[in-house]
């Protein structure tokens, strides 16, 4: 199949998937107990029956659910994600504002997890019975088992309180001009702990995956041939074995993109990182369905895009896949 045909087919699948995500999320959110008008009234300190009726009418909450769904789908098709009940702003603006910090956090975490996880896997595979392999194994089990919020709190306690190296919260120091190299460094300083927290669990998984892949690759005939030809060990490992060992890691990384986004909800809450995850958390607590739907739509788009990129990377890494 040509690349163009493959791409068009994937786009059609993606559109169907997005529609399903929209409808399912809309229904699920509206099935949850809790009335947004009561939440707004609660924040107001109470409200009369008339004011609550006005709030419901204002946001179309007095309409039957099917009508609300159809109206929502209609708006989404025109690029309007609605107006946030709680944050009092257009959802598109809110999501766009928070997308950057989340993308930075998630991309950093994935890169960190992929690079370090793969390297740890290689380290363990080269001497499967060595001390390094045992340590990587312990790290993998611990990293995989620890809940992400717990890891976040522990890293905070260790590196922001006991050893005050990194900041506790936020994306940048208050009052610092938001431009220039100094600002970039400041963001990087604030990024280390959240990205490390988010990366930890995936790093553990990738190290196990790459270790297994590497062990299989290193035992393959073509590696024996490469060694017999007199190639250096580093060249054998990193040039020949790694390429094949990476295919399952890439696949898993693509599939797990959605999970990384879900993990960002907790990490962003613990570190007050101003991203979509924290916005999602606040929106859930306040039944702000337009915002939540906008975030979920944005997340779905990112996951679909990540899957597309994964497939593209897969086709690049393994020429046999180009025929599918």
């Amino acid at each position, binding site marked *: 199949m040509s690349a163009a045909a493959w791409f068009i087919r994937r786009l059609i699948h993606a559109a169907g998937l997005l529609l399903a995500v929209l409808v399912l999320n809309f229904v699920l959110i509206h099935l949850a107990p809790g009335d947004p008008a*009561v939440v707004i009234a609660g924040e107001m300190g*109470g409200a*009369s029956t008339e*004011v609550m009726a006005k709030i419901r009418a204002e946001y179309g909450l007095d309409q039957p659910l099917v009508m609300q769904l159809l109206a929502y789908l209609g708006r989404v098709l025109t690029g309007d994600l609605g107006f946030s009940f*709680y944050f009092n702003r257009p959802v598109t603006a809110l999501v766009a504002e928070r997308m950057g910090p989340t993308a930075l956090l998630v991309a950093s975490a994935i890169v960190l997890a992929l690079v370090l996880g793969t390297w740890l896997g290689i380290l363990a595979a080269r001497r499967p019975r060595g001390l390094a392999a045992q340590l990587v194994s312990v790290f993998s089990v611990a990293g995989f088992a620890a809940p992400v919020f717990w890891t976040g709190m522990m890293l*905070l306690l260790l590196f922001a309180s006991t050893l005050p190296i990194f900041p506790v919260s936020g994306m940048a120091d208050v009052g610092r001009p938001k431009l220039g190299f100094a600002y970039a460094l400041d963001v990087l300083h604030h990024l280390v702990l959240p990205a490390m927290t988010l990366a930890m669990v995936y790093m553990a998984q990738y190290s196990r995956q790459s270790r297994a892949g590497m062990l299989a690759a290193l035992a393959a005939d073509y590696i024996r041939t490469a060694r017999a030809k007199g190639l250096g060990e580093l060249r054998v490992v990193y040039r020949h074995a790694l390429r094949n060992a990476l295919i399952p890691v890439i696949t898993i990384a693509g599939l797990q993109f959605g999970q990384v986004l879900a993990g960002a909800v907790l990490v962003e809450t613990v570190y007050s990182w101003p991203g979509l995850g*924290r916005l999602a958390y606040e929106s859930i607590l306040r039944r702000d369905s337009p915002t939540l739907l906008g975030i979920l739509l944005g997340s779905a788009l990112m996951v679909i895009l990540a899957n597309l990129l994964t497939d593209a990377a897969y086709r690049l890494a393994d020429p046999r896949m180009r025929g599918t």
Partner: protein
Amino acid sequence: MTASIGRRGAIAAAATLPIAAHAQSTDPRRGGTLVTLGGTTRHVNPAIQSGTPAGIPGTQIFASPLRFDDKWNPQPYLAEKWELAADGKSLTLHLVKGAVFHDGAPITSADVAFSIAVIQKNHPFKTMLEPVETVETPDPQTAIIRMSRAHPAILLAMSPALCPILPKHVFGDGRDILTHPANTAPVGSGPFRLTEFKPGESITIERFDRFFIPGRPYLDKIVMRIITDPPTQLLAMERQEIVYNSFLTTVRDAERLAKQAHIQIIDKGFEGIGALNWLAFNTARKPLDDKRVRQALAYLSDRARMLKVLQAGKVPQALTPIHPGSPLYTTEVNHFEYDLKKAEALLDEAGYKKGADGTRFKITIDPIPGTVEATTGIAEFLRGQVKRAGVELELRVSPDFPTWAQRVAGQDFDLAIDAVFNWADPVIGVHRTYLTRNIRKGVIWSNTQSYSNPKVDALLDAAAGEPDPAKRKAEYKEFQQIVVDDVPILFLHPFPYTQAIHKGLKGAPTSIWGPMSPWDEMYWEAAERR
């Protein structure tokens, strides 16, 4: 005959206050940034909603006619003097000359009249300005509030958190005030102007150089950062990323922060807000429709032990619907000290005898989501207490506020743990919970207990319009005695709010409104300025 207080007298009185005296002694100077904790809010306009997340920034952005000291005395603010008529039916405000809004337009009596009309129509506290008939504006500096009857709460209703003065030329453009874009980008009248509003992230305000009190405010800038995770809030305070937490909610956190060399804990400034934690009874449901059952549960609750266990004995009991910090509070009520025998006798008398399995009846309890010691911890404690008398208490934990609010507002509960504010005068924040006419299904913080007592209704209506302070106090005393005895609510404790503040930061707000009053007196000591 009128009662008049002017700026000079008030300044003399203020000089006796500990914080004011402290502020004077260290020579406040301008400059510096204050980074504090903020709350998530839809907007910053306190004219149309109550609560601290909007109220704290709102009281910095908007000035009000009056402010209060820590002894409940009104002080001049936008009104340099005022007169309350002897019959209590009119309040005349004389505005400071030369005061301007943040856009440079003069603040006039027309803006006061407009703001009062907006608040009367849109603020959730309907009783706050209910008797106001008109606001006359004989000249740009004078506003006369005319009322249908005496309304002693009117002075407290002029407080910063309750009566922000809005610019008529901005908010009066005919658009719906509830969704007006200026709610998130306001032109204010207070000591600070809004420069950045990032919902759920931060609110930044900066000094307004043309503020009507010369030399104030002292701080250049205040950044209210929104950190939702409580442990992170504490760490940020310890690391000095945050230097002021104006609403610390637990004794545990206050004790932890007090150990930091750079932090001071202040336990003043929460009398006006008057936050109470209580146990509400749904009096419309069996078996709680029987007063004897409610009294029995009150006798079983052992609040003294509960506070010792959950609050390390550092929080006092609340005995009545009125906050212990209010001058209207009385302790001359039934204290319902723990008495298992009396409780069992009352339950027997009400016809709820123990069954073969030792159980009399089963009821549910819905704690409002919050800190363990003020919500689920209390529910767990009570479960053990009432079981001794054969009452089964089933805990229904709500994952979030909307779930809880739907149950309570919908009157779908037996017992509910709730946190409710007095808002200084009972007319503003107390009446709503007990008046029969305020039983409104679906409306949170109305009379969700479905409590009805004609005598209480009559007392509250009388006290609302009673101009004689002594008579009013007596009426509220009787009200407290009846309500405590009827037990539509069992009062647990005032919220142990404290302020945690960097020691280099002076002039913390300790009036009855505390953090919900202007922070124009706060400043950094020279050596600590940042």
